[in-house]
């Protein structure tokens, strides 16, 4: 566990000092979004990687956080921190209630149910025009502020978002190495066996589902206050798929993998810009190839590479080992 905390401290140090090295500009702006996506990917990983529950509707909780915060602050003048808390509470209750029937399902049926839930929420965002502004979106959301400190620049947003993201990652790392983490992995392997050993699988699944939903909701609130504008198209089915891709590319069950996946997919459009229209094809290929050849994600790939290098490196003499 101490090794894990050390690893985390190193990671946090790097994250917090990056802005000093890149001197603002567009890259800083992109890294803010990497932060938000990391939060979302880690939240999904708890559900997908640890507990093994497929969710294709994660964007719904993200969107609910963004819209509830947005509406309360923009249309009703609430304080942003209060709205964030209220949104998290509301989404937590919703997830807990919906979690029980949804998580009774397995495999494709769970995927379909979460997909359906995600689409229903999206439709509400789109159609409830009087409250959400409909397809044209909801502008004029105020930024976050802490007393006299207003988070209105890329640099300040970076620290705000990444503080939250690091907190979430720390929580996840702790969870992974705790009894709960082991119980979740047991459920992933075999729910029946876990139950035989005394794990209340049903309750635990719902709890992790709720936890994941609340984290996504908070990410959504922070997103709304950073961009100051929300619209339904950001929270559709395709983003849920994108989140699943991030987790898979990074590696199921690996927290740092989720960061890698989030970073790669957020930065990928920048590299693909040269390909213009081809990016959708590359995206589909990436999904297929990663699932087929690297099911453990990049982290597994990196570990395999590391092991292979170590075998080759310590002198040619070790070849017959």
């Amino acid at each position, binding site marked *: 566990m101490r090794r894990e905390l050390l690893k985390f401290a190193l990671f946090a140090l790097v994250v917090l000092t990056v802005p000093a090295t890149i001197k603002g500009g567009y890259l800083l702006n992109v890294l803010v979004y990497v932060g938000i996506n990391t939060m979302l990917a880690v939240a999904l990983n708890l559900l997908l990687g640890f507990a093994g529950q497929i969710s294709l509707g994660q964007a719904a909780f993200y969107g609910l956080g963004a819209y509830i915060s947005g509406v309360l602050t923009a249309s009703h003048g609430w304080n942003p921190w209060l709205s964030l808390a209220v949104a998290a509470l509301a989404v937590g209750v919703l997830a807990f209630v919906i979690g029980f029937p949804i998580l009774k399902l*397995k495999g494709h049926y769970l995927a379909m149910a979460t997909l359906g839930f995600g689409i229903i929420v999206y439709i509400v965002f789109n159609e409830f025009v009087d409250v959400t502004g409909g397809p044209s979106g909801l502008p004029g959301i105020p930024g976050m502020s802490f007393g006299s400190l207003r988070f209105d620049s890329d640099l300040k947003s970076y620290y705000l978002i990444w503080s939250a993201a690091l907190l979430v990652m720390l929580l996840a790392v702790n969870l992974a190495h705790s009894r709960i983490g082991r119980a979740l992995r047991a459920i992933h392997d075999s729910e029946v066996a876990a139950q035989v050993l005394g794990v209340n699988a049903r309750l635990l699944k719902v709890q992790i589902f709720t936890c994941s939903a609340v984290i996504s909701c908070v990410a959504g609130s922070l997103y709304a206050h950073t961009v100051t504008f929300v619209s339904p198209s950001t929270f559709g089915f395709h983003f849920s798929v994108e989140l699943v891709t991030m987790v898979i590319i990074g590696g199921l069950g690996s927290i740092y993998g989720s960061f890698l996946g989030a970073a790669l997919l957020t930065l990928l459009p920048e590299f693909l810009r040269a390909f213009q229209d081809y990016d959708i*094809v590359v995206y589909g290929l990436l999904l297929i190839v990663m699932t087929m050849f690297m099911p453990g994600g990049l982290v597994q790939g990196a570990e395999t590479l590391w092991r292979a290098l170590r075998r080759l490196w310590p002198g040619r003499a070790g070849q017959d080992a």
Partner: protein
Amino acid sequence: MDFSHQLSQYLLSGLATGAIYALIGLGFAIIYNSTGIINFAQGEFVMLGGMFGVYFYEILKFPLAAALLLAVLCAAASGVIFERLAIRPLRRATPLGLVIITIGGSILVRGIAMLVWGKDTHALPTFSGDTPIALAGATLLPQHLWIFALTVLLIAVNKLFFQFTITGKALRACAVNRRAAGLVGIDVRRMTMFSFLLASGMGALAGIIVAPLTMTSYDVGIMLGLKGFCAAIIGGMSNGIGTVLGGLLLGVLESLGAGLISSGYKDAITFIILLLILFLRPQGLFSRGDSERV
């Protein structure tokens, strides 16, 4: 314009749309029953049917019948290629892996269609004209009759195929128990390929039959696939009547929802129904409920 006429229009339009969902749903069911895979790319085969049809008819200027036949063949071939490249090489098939691969596949197919054919919407001509037909206070188009006829035909052919042909029985054997089927000498891998062939062919047929009414473009597959899948779930993933009834029910409920409750939320109504079915009766409304869903 009294209410009973309105109602019969909602019903008739709903049945027509539902027939399409039924055809697509059958494709899902066939693959699922023979291989245990939910093919999220099913909707794209529907799209391919329509787009290939447009390609052969509008661009290569083939006569309509030839264009449609070629379209179905090409789409079915694409289905086989898809199975070969994306499904067969998958060694350890976890449900999540399969879901992701088929989603990735659908994105890929859609992307390729967009690059090859562009983003425009295209129309196919109707098979036998546009004069509306009055029926029980509502109106239908001749194309709707084609849709109904094709659905009935396909159900009949399906039933005969699965009941009386060796391949059909082999597919059913795979559905019951893959290991055992393999043990009695059925080439299970070939059956997988065959089920994809069937499903993509049926999807393509649905696509070309409906394209004259709804027009087609590279992204029609998404929603159609989802709704077809709902139809299959409501019908309990059966290879026959169950799924068809599921599709028809879905279409009618959607139409009634749009007309009587709210047109904006009609898709939400569809998915709420799906969720309710999954929560309360996951084996579907029309099946005998034997496989493990929960």
